[in-house]
């Protein structure tokens, strides 16, 4: 019992071992949230992924891991020094984590938690100006360092010029834009290529060279558990210096049981010379221990792909700090 008490109070061991070196880690993809703001079909989907008996009380589990405090606990388990929390406005698919709610979670530990704001687009024809103003207010009020968009979850095409004002604003304000790419297992997702294939982003990427676009999930096809449009991500990042990559979720135990998918993706990134524009993220917390487990799997994938310690350090923390202008 004494051992348990000591273990609970002990300072986490920061970083991760990589070929004999201790490397600092930042997780750039984390989702805080409120269970009651998630649509029922998605609640059922998430519950099916919780281990038993947590699946009997999913709202209780969500309350314990989806807050800023809960997420810090999950980061501690993996020795992860900092994390990025995403706001989301996707009421018909994954639900809502408002800018205000996420902004308040950042205050739990502003030294370790950073945030990406998001923007409502479901009434864009009439509310564009208001929503852009709300976005700017959120950035100014809570110190968000970028913008999170998910065309597939928010139901707007990647090549629809009506939404380019978001990318323009991001460029003016120096806010990198994180994009969900690839299909998604969540009920209600728009799975067609125009919503999931980053090739449809090319026009916007070319039009807004001052805007950084981070292609999340590397275009992974989460429905068929295939690399999906990884080639398109690599191609865009090779041709456009304002395109960055983020390999979250595709290497999870359910999507990539034997680790070959993530190792293959990390290998493709390295071969294309894009290690310097790749940022680690997990897509946690999902369930207790996921963030720490995904880090282990990513480290294993980088080792398989032949990353040196210097390269691994870039992916795990240095690129994040360089892009977002934050330093520990």
């Amino acid at each position: 019992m004494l051992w348990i008490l000591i273990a609970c109070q002990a300072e986490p061991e920061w970083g991760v071992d990589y070929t004999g070196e201790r490397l600092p880690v930042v997780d750039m993809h984390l989702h805080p949230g409120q269970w009651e703001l998630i649509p029922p079909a998605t609640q059922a989907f998430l519950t099916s992924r919780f281990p038993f008996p947590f699946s009997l009380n999913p709202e209780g589990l969500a309350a314990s891991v989806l807050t800023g405090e809960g997420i810090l606990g999950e980061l501690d388990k993996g020795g992860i020094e900092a994390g990025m929390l995403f706001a989301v406005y996707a009421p018909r698919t994954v639900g809502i984590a408002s800018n205000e709610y996420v902004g308040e979670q950042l205050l739990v530990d502003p030294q370790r938690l950073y945030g990406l704001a998001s923007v409502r687009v479901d009434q864009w024809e009439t509310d564009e100006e208001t929503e852009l103003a709300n976005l700017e207010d959120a950035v100014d009020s809570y110190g968000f360092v970028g913008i999170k968009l998910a065309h597939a979850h928010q139901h707007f095409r990647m090549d629809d010029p009506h939404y380019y004002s978001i990318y323009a604003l991001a460029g003016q304000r120096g806010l990198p834009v994180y994009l969900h790419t690839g299909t998604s297992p969540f009920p209600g997702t728009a799975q067609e290529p125009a919503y999931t294939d980053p090739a449809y982003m090319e026009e916007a990427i070319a039009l807004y060279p001052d805007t950084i676009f981070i292609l999340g999930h590397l275009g992974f096809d989460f429905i068929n558990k295939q690399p999906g449009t990884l080639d398109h991500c690599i191609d865009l990042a090779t041709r456009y210096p304002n395109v960055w990559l983020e390999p979250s979720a595709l290497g999870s135990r359910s999507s990539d049981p034997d680790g070959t998918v993530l190792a293959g993706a990390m290998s493709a990134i390295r071969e294309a010379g894009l290690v310097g524009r790749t940022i680690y993220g997990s897509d946690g917390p999902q369930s207790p221990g996921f963030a720490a487990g995904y880090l282990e799997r990513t480290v294993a994938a980088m080792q398989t792909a032949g990353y040196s310690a210097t390269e691994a350090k870039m992916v795990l923390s240095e690129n994040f700090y360089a892009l977002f202008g934050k330093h520990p």
Partner: protein
Amino acid sequence: MMLLLATMLFAAVPEAAESSTVALLAGGSPKGQIAIGVRGGYPSFGVQAQVGFTGGWTGISLFDTQLFRRNWVGMGVGKRWLEGRVGVLSGEALLGVEEQSGIFPSFGPSGLIRLKMAHPGRILVPYLELSTRVTLLGQTTVTEKLDGTSERTWVADARCVPSATLGLGWAIRPWIGIDVGFDWMYDTTATVSIPGIHLGLGVGW
């Protein structure tokens, strides 16, 4: 609670004394003997009462819950199949209902089959329980159409929950004992199951 009381009312004068710990952990009570056991831990809590009938049959009533979210109550019978100095093997079959509360409520008739094995030591009683619980459920889907009408469909469904418990009992006195056990319950609606643990207390007369 009514089931528990009903089981106790069937009690008669004991024919032969046997450790209540063995009766509960190995299954089967001698004729006329009553045993009541309580188990508490994570994620399960349960109360079982059993009474020995003639012909080697045992009447059983059981309340079992996981986190007080999934509750099972029912009654049935058990019988020892093999009995010796080294081990006891018994089988139990119960019928009842399962009710789940929370954001995904469900209710349906349920059956439980349980196999119990134990070494009937005078003081220490190592035991293994293997069981399967099958609950019949219905899924109703209401589709609301754009023309204002709605369509209701119902499909039958079943939830199967196999489980195993490995533990050790300590018969402090013939009429009272305790046990500790590790529980593993597989739920077909979840991807992974986390093992549980319980402490038990059993009394008999």
